[in-house]
């Protein structure tokens, strides 16, 4: 039987190149900023934290301030951006498979708006405390995302026994309801308007190692679920009935996948704000490169999303010093036209055929 060695080889290559690229981008992004640190120093600081490495020797001659800037300030931010970007892209792939719609993303399901609403409530009512490094805004955002998700599924199940359109419609309805509520909160609390608005635009400026750790736990769990369910998700693209007739436990697969994506998105949005289009564009590009099989698509989309987000965040904090551009606005500005271009190209291709 012909085995197509070339294709497997290309895929491994693509994965390898992206992984190497990700490491390079992490080190590079950590070196760039208002205080410029040589890339070699940034690399050495990262390497020094690996196990079995002689710390003193490798850190020799690096100023203390540089160590502080790289390790305590920049790296958490870069890693958080990478994990949120990669996580959103992977969640996008799974949502598109679950809802059999290439345009499904966390925003459509209302999860992002839920997080934004939670954050807006905390900001507007001046609820400000912090437990073990976890701030109230972050907690409220996470709770908002989870509660919205529960509401959406509750409504959808009552309405049409968990059908695909039912969930999408419930998500859209909840999303616009919450957006309106946020607008009201902003109008009643004029002095907090800017802060709420800035939170919604998305930023990684408040990154800490605690956030990185929290995000990493959720991310690893969710990605593991996605990879295990990869083939089931392939079959689900033929609809529940066909998938079931070929042996997929549809209800179990859907439940696990939906819970894992929701938690991942909720975690991502709660630490960064609303960051659009990553979960739409990255999966779309990767699908064109490696095809629709989810087991390949999910890890590659994760890598692509991580690189893209770190890059965007780097631009957001270095383009107009000393100010920052909201990274969410940046992904929208670059993402939306690119998405339109993809659609246009696809349409041209369709016309030629």
């Amino acid at each position, binding site marked *: *039987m012909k085995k197509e060695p070339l294709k497997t080889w290309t895929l491994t290559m693509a994965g390898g190149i992206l992984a190497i690229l990700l490491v390079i981008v992490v080190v590079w992004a950590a070196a760039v900023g208002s205080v410029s640190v040589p890339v070699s120093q940034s690399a050495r600081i990262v390497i020094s934290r690996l196990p079995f490495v002689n710390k003193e020797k490798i850190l020799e001659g690096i100023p203390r301030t540089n160590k502080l800037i790289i390790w305590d300030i920049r790296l958490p931010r870069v890693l958080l951006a990478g994990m949120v970007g990669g996580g959103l892209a992977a969640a996008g792939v799974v949502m598109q*498979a679950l809802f059999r719609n290439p345009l499904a993303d966390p925003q459509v399901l209302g999860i992002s708006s839920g997080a934004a609403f939670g954050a807006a409530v905390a900001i507007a009512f001046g609820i400000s405390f912090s437990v073990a490094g976890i701030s109230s805004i972050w907690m409220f955002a996470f709770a908002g995302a989870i509660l919205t998700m529960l509401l959406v599924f509750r409504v959808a199940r009552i309405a049409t026994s968990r059908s695909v359109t039912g969930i999408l419609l419930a998500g859209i309805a909840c999303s616009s309801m919450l957006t309106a509520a946020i607008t009201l909160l902003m109008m009643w609390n004029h002095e907090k308007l800017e802060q709420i608005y800035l939170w919604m635009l998305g930023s990684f400026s408040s990154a800490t190692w605690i956030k990185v750790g929290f995000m990493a736990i959720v991310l690893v769990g969710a990605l593991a679920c996605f990879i295990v369910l990869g083939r089931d998700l*392939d079959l689900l693209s*033929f*609809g529940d009935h*066909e998938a079931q*007739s070929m042996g*997929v436990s549809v209800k179990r697969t859907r439940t696990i996948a939906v819970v894992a994506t929701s938690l991942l998105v909720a975690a991502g949005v709660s630490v960064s704000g609303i960051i659009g289009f990553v979960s739409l564009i990255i999966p779309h590009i990767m699908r064109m490169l490696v095809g*629709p099989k989810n087991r390949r698509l999910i890890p590659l989309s994760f890598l692509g999303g991580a690189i893209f987000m770190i890059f965007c965040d780097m631009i957001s904090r270095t383009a107009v010093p000393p100010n920052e551009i909201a990274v969410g606005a940046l992904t929208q500005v670059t993402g939306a036209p690119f998405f339109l271009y993809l659609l246009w190209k696809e349409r041209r291709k369709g016309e030629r055929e």
Partner: protein
Amino acid sequence: MNVEAKNLTYQPSGTKTPILSGVSYTFSEGCMTALLGPNGSGKTTMLRHFLAQIKSPEGAVLIDGKDSLSYSPKERSRILAWVPQNSSGESAFTVEDVVLMARYPYKGTWDDDSDEDRRIAEEAMETVGVLQFKKRDFTSLSGGERQRALIARALTQTTPWIFLDEPTSNLDVKHQIRIMQVLREKVDAKKTSSIVVMHDFNLVEKYCDKAILLKEGHVVAKGETREVLTPKLLREVYEVDFEVFEKEGQRFFVPKTQD
């Protein structure tokens, strides 16, 4: 392995008349059985019970004497394969990918497609004539090509039973005959028994051993094809007069038009 419908009754909530009422039938192994009846007579609803897509409040589908709902989807899919009328697949999977999906019930989470899987899929694509399309996107196929790919997929599932919902509805004459021939050969080789929803009595007469005639959710007739396909019963069920011609032992059914 026996497959049996026992007192299947189905009435969606909020409707006045049931789609199926008290349908019982034991499908015999080693047979090709036609499921006949006008539109809306309950044929597809009956199939959906077998595929555990819907549940009858009183009745049940029994596989080997056990309620089919007590089997896991994976176990069930090693017994029953399904060819839907239309597929809802929309992703850019190739025909080969789609056909290979049917090997799912035989694989563990981390197993890749084996050489054996590929051989079975290749053979199935060959028999229904889609092998030359195997690298094309499934969604780029025409209706008839898609239908054949779905049949290849069901054959790749290598089940003792296969349920086909109007498998020839989009096919040209040559492929209609080819598909019926393939199914017949599988039955004769004692590999797969099939249940086929059909509207073409001439194909049923030529290829099917048995037939069930449904009307408004009731079984009007069941048994050998020859006993079920009679002008009298067809008139009763379809409200159309049929003329029957016989040539070399095979009967041909031609509807009489009003004028």
